[in-house]
Structures are given as structure tokens and as C-alpha cells.
């Protein structure tokens, strides 16, 4: 995956709580790009991002939606409210955000599965306190936009007013994001430990391997 180290960009304000993954990546009935059709691989899903809010049914843009308004249409950072990415586990929600140019989301909290999906795709989820987020929202929600810098090495966000907001992230995720790590390759290097565990487990819980679907 693409590493994430530092990023400076216009930040788009989206002051709605509990934005769910159906909002971010709507189901086929309401999305322009249909899964399974040609041109629907994971790198080509950007047009579906917030599709119902962003496009009319005839796919013309809805000018009132922030990501259709310059300069927010160029934003790589999204500032939003609690529980962003709740609901469905669909990783398409992360792919579609990346596809539309978003590399970092700042919010007080995230849906658990979405948070993990972000970290495995080079999209940095930044958890800041509610007051910090409210302050940032006020600063970036201005005509012409405002720049925000996110530095994963230093674990800090710098607002347009040079205010510095430190954030916490699990060291495992931080390392993976900074290096753009292939996690499967890293886990496969522990094949011996996995093998050893499985042999022991099969002795302890023999009915698991002895049951299940026919092979």
C-alpha cells in the first residue's frame, strides 16, 4: 500500500455525526459504478464516494455538497464528526475515498471496522478530541478553504491558525502506514509460529478440525 508520512492539503468540512459506510459508498441501486461490471476494480470506485449526496439521479453534480465546491473538490483531508464510517464493513468505502483523493480523515471517533480498513489501505484516520475537531471545522469551513498539515511521524495535526493538535495511534498501525507495509508478507514470515500454534490447537480442540464442511 501507499505509505502515509505527511500531508498538507485543503481540508473539507463535513459536520455530520454518524456518517455510515452506506453514505460513503452507497449500494448498487444508488451508485454510478456497479460492482462486478467492467471498470469497477478497487482503484476505479472514486465516483461512488458519497454518491447520493454528491450526484443527482442523472449523475449531474449537486452543487450544495461540499466536495463539489472548489477548492474542497481538491481536498485530501476530511474533517468530520463522531463515529465516521459506522455500519457496514464494506472496504469499498475506503477505496472510494482514496479514489476521490481523500488520504486522511479527522474525527473524534470512527466505526471500528472502517478504522481498521483505513489503516490497511494507507488512508490515515486521525482521532482528535471533540473540541479540537470543532475548532478545526470552524477554521476550514471558510470560502477559499484553508490548509491543514497532518504529520504521522510526529503524530500531530497543524491547523490553518498554526494550532498544533497531537493525536494517538496504535504503534502497530503507525508503523504499517509509515512504511506502506505489506502486512500479509510480514505475517507469512511467522509461518513457523502459526504452524506450531495450529498443531497445539488441534490437540486441545480436536473437534474443530474433525468437523466442518466436507473437503
Amino acid at each position, binding site marked *: 500500500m501507499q505509505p502515509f508520512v505527511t500531508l498538507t492539503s485543503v481540508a473539507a468540512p463535513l459536520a*455530520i455525526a*454518524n456518517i455510515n459506510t452506506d453514505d460513503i459508498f452507497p449500494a448498487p441501486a444508488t451508485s454510478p459504478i*456497479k460492482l462486478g461490471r467492467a471498470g469497477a*476494480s478497487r482503484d476505479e470506485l472514486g465516483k461512488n464516494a458519497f454518491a447520493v449526496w454528491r450526484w443527482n439521479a442523472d449523475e449531474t453534480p449537486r452543487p450544495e455538497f461540499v466536495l463539489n465546491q472548489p477548492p474542497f473538490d481538491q481536498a485530501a483531508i476530511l474533517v468530520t464528526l463522531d*463515529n465516521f464510517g*459506522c455500519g457496514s464493513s464494506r472496504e469499498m468505502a*475506503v477505496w472510494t475515498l482514496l479514489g476521490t483523493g481523500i488520504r486522511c480523515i479527522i474525527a473524534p*471517533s470512527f466505526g471500528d471496522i472502517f478504522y481498521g480498513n483505513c489503516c490497511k489501505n494507507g488512508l490515515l484516520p486521525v482521532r482528535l478530541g471533540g473540541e479540537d475537531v470543532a475548532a478545526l471545522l470552524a477554521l476550514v469551513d471558510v470560502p477559499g478553504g484553508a490548509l491543514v498539515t497532518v504529520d504521522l511521524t510526529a503524530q500531530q495535526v497543524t491547523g490553518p491558525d498554526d494550532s498544533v493538535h497531537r493525536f494517538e495511534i496504535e504503534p502497530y498501525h503507525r508503523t504499517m502506514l509509515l512504511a506502506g507495509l505489506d502486512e*500479509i508478507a510480514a505475517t507469512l514470515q511467522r509461518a513457523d509460529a502459526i504452524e506450531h500454534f495450529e498443531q497445539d490447537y488441534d490437540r486441545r480442540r480436536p473437534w474443530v478440525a474433525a*468437523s466442518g464442511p466436507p473437503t
Partner: protein
Amino acid sequence: MPRTLQQMIWDDHVIDTYPDGTCLLAVDRQMIYEGTSFQAFEALKISKRPVRRPAATLATPDHMVPTHDRSPQAMRSGSRHLVEALDRNCRDHGIFHIPLEDRRQGIVHVVGPEQGFTLPGLVLVCADSHTSTHGAFGALAFGIGTTELEHVLATQTLTQRPSRSMRVTVDGPLAPGVFAKDLALAMIAEIGASGGNGHAIEFAGSAIDALSMEGRMTLCNMAVEAGSRSGLVAPDETTFAYLDGRPFAPVGTAWDQAVAYWRTLRTEDGATFDAEHRLDGTALGPQVTWGTSPEHTVGVDRAVPDPDDAPDAQTADAWRRALEYMDLRPGTAMADVAVDRVFIGTCTNGRLEDIRAAAAVVRGRRIAPGVHAMVTPGSGLVREAAEREGLDVVLRDAGFEWRLPGCSMCFGGAYDSVGDGQRCASTSNRNFENRQGRGARTHLMSPAMAAAAAVTGRITDVRELG
């Protein structure tokens, strides 16, 4: 230190612990379906990685399948490609697969338990958030993303941090006309749609002990709507009786060994939870959602709330937005809200017990003029069992469509959606904006309540129908 059920299962599966507390966790089994697995198989193909343990997987298509007609011409190209890709990937990797034409096909979260694939004590995953359903058996079951699924298929492990622990204790018994779905909605209203974030919820108490496996599955299914990746119920005699004799369950000595172990899977006396909630199930009536988050729940005898009464400004904003989307005014009695559509089914409420409850309400009655109502059984075997009991006839006679198994109108999929501005009484799990289709207005409720709404044409307290 006494441990919770969740900790016991977690500890049993830790292969390694990294310096920051992230664990390499063994995964016993996984379920896959067409919608979120094809990208994982594509990635494995590109990296030339094999599937580590094909026998640990159960596959069936559910999300993108038509439920009105299974003839080849009924399939649209996108979903046909996804279903064919699942067929091909399972064949190529030697994965057990229940294909679309098989009588056992259905929603993975209905099929897994029904086949005895889901067992207590397992770590069980699926690239679907409603994997929490399987926690009803005392398994640690949670939804993952597609990249995590790829990791599981390649390594039979995940890197995870343990969730914090929460216990929701519910005193029973529940009153007649009140079901696990009402309990789930009331629980979410109590702790909030993000109240369970970062936690696994164990459900306990006399109301939970008295629930059937179907009811426990409904409750654990909805744990994710409170933000929790996992719901858990300690396995007991109800669990063992459900599993005994299922096609993929252990048999003979293996069964005896398994049950002996499963009996030990209970939160130990003195174990402490990071959070505790208690609900009085005896005081609970039927619940219904009024807004666009599952936390927007009230008793059916109540009115639409007023944003001016919201606990804080952010909640007031969310309520206003929800009321505008739902086209509802504060103070309107929920029982005055008319519906256009009724949808009974899904991984939340598509099991035999749910269809029985709906049929009991509509027996000898007709659905109201102008209402379109359908029942989508959760699996082919649920459908057959309902037909053996004549429930399909009861429902058809009342004016319901009797569909084929799949996720159907739970979300605006390729085939079924609620029209713009239409209002749907739904037994599904999410009342999000546009979830069931562009402009669709969803009211979540139990199957009995949805059936009552079909009969009267408005949201109705099922207890009033007698």
C-alpha cells in the same frame, strides 16, 4: 484474574503478542459471499499466494442475488459476474461452496448456524459487519474488511487488538408481543449507535437465557448497530440442542469432547467488564425507529421526539436532519405513521421463528390496500421449513410476496429497493438515509410488528391486533 467469555476465547487463539499489545490471532473459520470476496481472491492471485486452509471456509452467494426469479435471464450482468467469480474462486481453491441453485443457499449468517458451521468457542470472521450474529453461540465472531479477508485466506490469522468488554444484562421475561428485535432496538437506544465502539458486548440475564437461538442471533446481529464488532451469549443447553445433529457439527466422541469444553465457556465469577448496562426486559413494549440511525428508537406507543428536547446541540442537529429526511414532525404518534412497503427477512429476522411470528399476525387477514409486502426467507432451508408448516400459504393469501432467499431489500441492491419517498416497515438492521434505495424511509421493527403494519397500512402495536 477471573476472565470474561470474550477474554477466554481470545486467549485461546493468541499466537503471538506484539510490543504494543496487537496480537496475531488464529482464525478458526471464515464465511465468504460474492460481494466482498472477489477482490481478496484477485489480490491473492496477483501475489501468487495460496489459500492456507480451504476447509476452514464456507461460501454462499447472498448479497447480489435476485429473490424474485432465479432464471438466468433474471440475473443482471454485474451480479452474475460476482456470483460466477465466487463459483470459480471456490472451485480453484477447493473451498466448500453452496451455489445459487443449491437448496441450502441463503444469507451466510443464516446458513452458517443452520449447517452447524458456527460453533461455540471459535474465532469466526466474514467480510460483513453482521458476522456479530454468530456470537449467539458463544463464538468470538466479527466483521472484517476485504484486505483482512485476504490476510485470513493467506495466513488463517488476523492482527487485532482485543476489544474492551461490555456486559448488557437484561432481566426477563419479555412480555407477549415483545421479541429479541425489540430488545436490540431498546439496547441501542440506551447505549447509542456508537456506545459499543471498541467493545465486544456480552448479553446476559434471565431474558437472554430464555431466548431461542434465533432470538439470540437477532440480538447479537444488532450489536454492530450499537458500534460493537461482536455480540456474545454464553453457550448453554439451548445452544447444544440447536447444534446437535446439524450437518457440519461434530459427532460421536468429538461432540462429547466439544460439549464438555463448551460448558466451561462462561464469564467467570468476579470477572469485571469495562462497561456494564442493565435493562428491564419485563417493562419493554414493541419498539420502532423514527429516524435514520438505529438509536432513533421509541416504543410504538410513543410519539416522534422533538429536537428541542435533545440532550445536546449535536444530537438536536442530527434529529432535525433525520426528521427532514423521514418527513416526520415532532409529536406525531408513531402509530399514525402510514407505510407503503413491508419487508420481512434478512440476517436479522429471516429465520423460521421470524416467519412464524409474521404469519401468526396475518393469518386470516389481508394486507391493507396500497401496501406492497414481501417475505424473503433467510435460506432455502428456512423457506422449505416454512412451506412445510403452510406459512407461505398464510402469507400469500394475505397478499404477501413469498420470495427466494437472499439479502434482498435490506440495502438498495441490484434488484429490490424502496422507492424515493416511500416508507417501509422493515425487519432489517439499518434505517440509514438511502440504505434501502434513494430517498427510502425505513422504520425498523420486529417481524410481528412489520406484519401488523402490513395489515393496517400504518405502524401498529401488534398487541392491539390480538
